[in-house]
């Protein structure tokens, strides 16, 4: 007992005391885990076991501000969460397992996870036995501080439900973990609705859109109808956007008028034109110009690099933002509009004095879900007063910025994962 106690006491688990909710939680955001060598399962290869645990941790990372890294090198007491398999009396634990059937695992609060190796654990691709992935996600939920939740669909139900293929974390489980650790916040490189045309079987043209949030070299598809990101995001840019810089872009512009349509990505001094049909950047365009091209060449009078940009269909101008200035560029005359550049504050005045991003806008995003233009900076956004709104409330300034809100209060679960688990 003494050795065990000494080992126990040596763990300086930093805890976040959430007395208002009565729960404890880890106080740091990057947690280390390890499948301990004396606790390998005899049923799956070691690589399979580690892959499944890496995926299980990643699933919690996709819905919380926590990040998890597999640590196979530090001294054991520096590892926050240790996982191991055993049977009967196991791994120095005082809760012995009961053999095949019934209890398949247990977890220690802010601590370790034990799996009963007498159970028939299987990998994600199998539909027999007990899914090790589901059990691991459940037990990690306990370690992070979640109790059993008796709600159909919750991953934290005490009993194991036979394998459903699309096992994911639902809204309430996500809010339960965010209740302990907060929402996911951070600045974005750009945000946009990607629009493209599709021909229906009857020959009609359907126009569809998807919403994307990009941060450095990663992106999320945001499912507005489900108020969350696509399961399994973020993914690396080059997986979904072929040919744009793999470490990220500054801005996205979709020029769309009756006469022309073009999609551009901007990064540094250059810009790329995107081929929606073939889902990759153009090497050359119809005029034979090679890409990437210089911004100063393609958009005379526009400085680079830019912070963000958007195309306004009402006046057929691209608005480029750079520091505290905004540049209106006419795509008809291919030149800077007269009177520009102007201060952002003059073109987009605050509705509430003092509540304004001032400059260095991260993203200017026109949302087809909200029928509104948003300026994003850091973890905040300002909605631009629309013409319909001004028709109802004429006292509102043209292009006025409504008081800011927090991005994670309108778009949910846009969470980073640790770089080591991004490829999972």
């Amino acid at each position, binding site marked *: *007992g*003494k050795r065990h106690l000494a080992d*126990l*006491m040596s763990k300086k688990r930093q805890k976040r*005391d959430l007395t*208002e909710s*009565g729960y*404890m939680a880890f106080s740091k955001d990057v947690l280390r885990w390890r499948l301990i060598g004396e606790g390998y399962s005899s049923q799956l*290869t070691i690589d399979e076991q580690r892959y499944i645990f890496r995926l299980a941790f990643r699933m919690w990372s996709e819905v919380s501000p926590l990040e998890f890294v597999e640590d196979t090198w530090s001294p054991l007491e520096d590892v926050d969460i240790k996982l191991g398999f055993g*049977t*009967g009396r196991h791994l120095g634990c005082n*809760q012995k397992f*009961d*053999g*095949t*059937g*019934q*209890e*398949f695992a*247990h*977890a*220690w*609060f802010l*601590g*370790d996870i034990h799996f009963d190796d*007498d159970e*028939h654990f*299987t990998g994600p691709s199998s539909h027999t036995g007990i899914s090790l992935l589901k*059990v691991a996600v459940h*037990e990690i939920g306990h370690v992070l*501080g979640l*109790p059993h939740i*008796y*709600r159909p669909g*919750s991953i934290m139900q005490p*009993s*194991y439900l036979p394998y459903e293929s*699309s096992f*994911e974390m*639902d809204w*309430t489980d996500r*809010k*339960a973990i965010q209740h302990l650790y907060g929402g996911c916040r951070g600045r974005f490189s750009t945000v946009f609705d990607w629009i493209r045309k*599709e021909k229906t079987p009857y020959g009609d043209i359907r*126009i*569809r*859109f*998807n919403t994307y949030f990009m941060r450095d070299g990663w992106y999320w598809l945001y*499912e*507005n*109808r*489900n*108020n969350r990101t*696509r399961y399994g995001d973020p993914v690396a840019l080059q997986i*979904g956007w072929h040919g744009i810089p793999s470490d990220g872009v500054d801005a996205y512009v979709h020029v769309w008028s009756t006469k022309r349509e073009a999609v551009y990505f901007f990064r540094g001094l250059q810009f790329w034109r995107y081929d929606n049909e073939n*889902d990759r950047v153009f090497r050359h365009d119809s005029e034979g110009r090679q890409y990437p091209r210089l911004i100063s060449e393609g958009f005379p009078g526009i400085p680079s690099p830019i912070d963000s940009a958007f195309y306004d269909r009402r006046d057929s101008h691209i608005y480029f933002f750079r520091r505290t200035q905004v540049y209106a560029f006419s795509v008809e005359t291919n030149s800077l509009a007269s009177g520009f550049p102007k201060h952002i504050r003059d073109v987009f005045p605050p509705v509430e004095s003092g509540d304004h991003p001032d400059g260095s806008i991260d993203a200017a995003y026109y949302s*087809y*879900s909200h*029928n509104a233009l948003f300026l994003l900076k850091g973890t905040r956004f300002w909605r631009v007063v629309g*013409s319909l709104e001004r028709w109802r409330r004429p006292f509102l300034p043209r292009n006025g910025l409504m008081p800011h809100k927090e991005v994670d209060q309108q778009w949910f679960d846009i969470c980073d994962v640790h770089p080591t688990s991004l490829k999972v």
Partner: protein
Amino acid sequence: EKLFHNRDHSDMQIPKSHRAPVITDEYEAELFLSRYGFIKPPQQEEIQMKQTDISFSDDFLDDFQTAIQEGTSVPLSRDIPETSHGEVHKSESESQAFVSALTEFQMVSGLPVTGVFDDATKDAMNKPRCGVPDKEIVPNPHVVTESIGGLELENSWNETFNEIDGNNTENSIIGNSSNSSEGDILNFNDTESLLTISNDTHKNNSLGNPTGNSSWTSSQSQPLQN
């Protein structure tokens, strides 16, 4: 590395001792209910009395005291002491405790609430499950914040969830275009050209199921205290 047996255990004769005991009678059901926290442990002072019954060496107690000061706690075994079957004589209060625990288990498990150890309850108790108690087992006297499991917590927990849930239904139609959401044909009023846009199921997008509404029940468990 070499695997010790087939994945589906087909080449293994699982020794009886390695099979979880099937719950067949009320005695085992009671063990199950107390193991997972549905039957409250005897009062706190009795537990302390038991602790003083067991003689600890001084330095272990010192360690134990230190452990207490540092906010860690030595895990108390939850193994129920082995006793032979049939010795159990239930007093009236114990029978009531058993029935109310059984009722609560049936309720949270979505079973018909009969208060009787019926077949449905027996099946549910023999299903594979997580070993973390559904309720706080031993209110850990030394780590107060972790042992809050009382009603006030459930209420606060419920409040939080009802509030979030309420927001969720409001938010499912977000923004000022309250009559539109992805997948519908959207009419844009902000632009001179009337466009109809509908949402896309993007190239490699696997559309998940919409998040269900949650009917939040009150009782909840505490993970094992470390």
